């Protein structure tokens, strides 16, 4: 399933790139809307980059199960011999590999655009790598709940946004702490704990939600 998803993603590179382009484009709006002054941007950079990443992840979460739902693969997965949560986990992993990982790798570019102080980059990379994985996991629950609903995208954001908040808080704080020259290892550890918790909970919740969504 994982390999298949990755192959599919590779075939639809356009879809895959859209959230990333969104990520960069919104970042250019910030200086236009606020101020091009480096000092002012630097203050906001950690928070803004993290909010952008969150929105980009949210945007792409909708497509997590949508394709499989439309072509019936999901129906087959429900009756497949493997437990459903394994498949869900595979799909989430694929989602992170085509979304979260590139996003993390692109974040230094945004850091430069928003004049993030140099001390923040390691924390930015580390927190986004952990954080986007947690976001993918949480987004999967929302995506599973809304997959059977037409125009579920907006609803998905409404549902998932409150669940994203702890990740945002700790992710952005880690970067901020790094910029301020403080130790941020503890904050990253909490982010890791959130991720571990999400790994334990989310595949089961999403699998349950898929069953509910498809069969009532």
């Amino acid at each position, binding site marked *: 399933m994982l390999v298949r998803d990755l192959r599919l993603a590779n075939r639809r590179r356009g879809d895959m790139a859209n959230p990333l382009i969104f990520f960069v484009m919104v970042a250019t709006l910030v200086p236009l809307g606020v101020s091009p002054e480096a000092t002012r941007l630097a203050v906001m950079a950690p928070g803004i980059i993290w909010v952008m990443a969150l929105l980009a992840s949210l945007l792409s979460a909708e497509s997590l199960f949508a394709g499989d739902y439309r072509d019936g693969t999901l129906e087959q997965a429900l009756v497949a011999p493997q437990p459903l949560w394994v498949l869900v986990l595979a799909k989430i992993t694929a989602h992170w590999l085509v979304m979260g990982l590139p996003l993390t790798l692109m974040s230094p570019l945004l850091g430069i655009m928003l004049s993030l102080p140099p001390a923040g980059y390691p924390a930015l990379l580390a927190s986004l790598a952990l954080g986007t994985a947690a976001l993918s996991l949480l987004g999967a*629950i929302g995506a599973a709940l809304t997959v059977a609903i037409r125009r579920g995208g907006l609803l998905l954001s409404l549902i998932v946004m409150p*669940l994203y908040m*702890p990740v945002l808080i700790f992710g952005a704080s880690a970067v901020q702490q790094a910029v301020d020259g403080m130790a941020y290892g503890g904050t990253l550890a909490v982010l890791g704990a959130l991720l571990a918790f999400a790994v334990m909970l989310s595949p089961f919740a999403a699998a349950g*939600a898929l069953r*509910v969504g498809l069969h*009532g």
Partner: protein
Amino acid sequence: MTFTQWFHRLGSPRWFYQASGKWLPWLAAATLILLVAGLVWGLGFAPADAKQGNSFRIIYIHVPAAFLALAGYYVMAVAGAIGLIWKMKLAEMAMRPAATLGAALTFISLFTGALWGKPTWGTYWVWDARITSMLVLFFLYLGVIALHYAYTSRDAATRAGAVLALVGTVNIPIIYKSVDWWYTLHQPATIKLTEAPTMHPAMFQPLVVMILGFYCFYALALILGLRAEILHRERRTRWVRELIGEDAV
């Protein structure tokens, strides 16, 4: 009567509809008495706060509403869980009224909090840990309600709402802890929100009355909502037809 028997009877919408009809007058009376007593006491007789003056009287509505808003989420989630696991009809039916009720109470506590904040701190809104958490709770409620309305199949709506409510329940402590942590990180020096000072008994007693009143109100509103939901869902059953028959003929 054994526990399982009791459980099954409680789960029967018909039994609940008939039994709750008998409870309602008592519950309504208790709610009315407690709320009126608490309101008159709190508005007229409790002493004004030394620092905040009379604006502090908002506490008598703000705190009970916040209490029930939070407890209401657990009521909703537990109802959802019981509905999911044991397929108890009554619990499934309770989800929707509980969500509406909880969202409304959260709104009340946010609204009164803002109006209390203006004379006390000079601003309607502060990004304080408790206020922010309350806002997140409001969003969680809205999510459940929105999901409910989005499904065309009623059963799917109920179960999807239940799954979301359960996920939310697991997340509430995490969200609260992280918001708390975030707030201590950014605590602004100018605004210091002190913890509720040890209250004078003369101020505290009406608050207890109001909290009890709100609990009764919550039960009352939930039962009313549940009864409407029961009639709507069971409208094709024989007992509801007989019920109308009695009234109509």
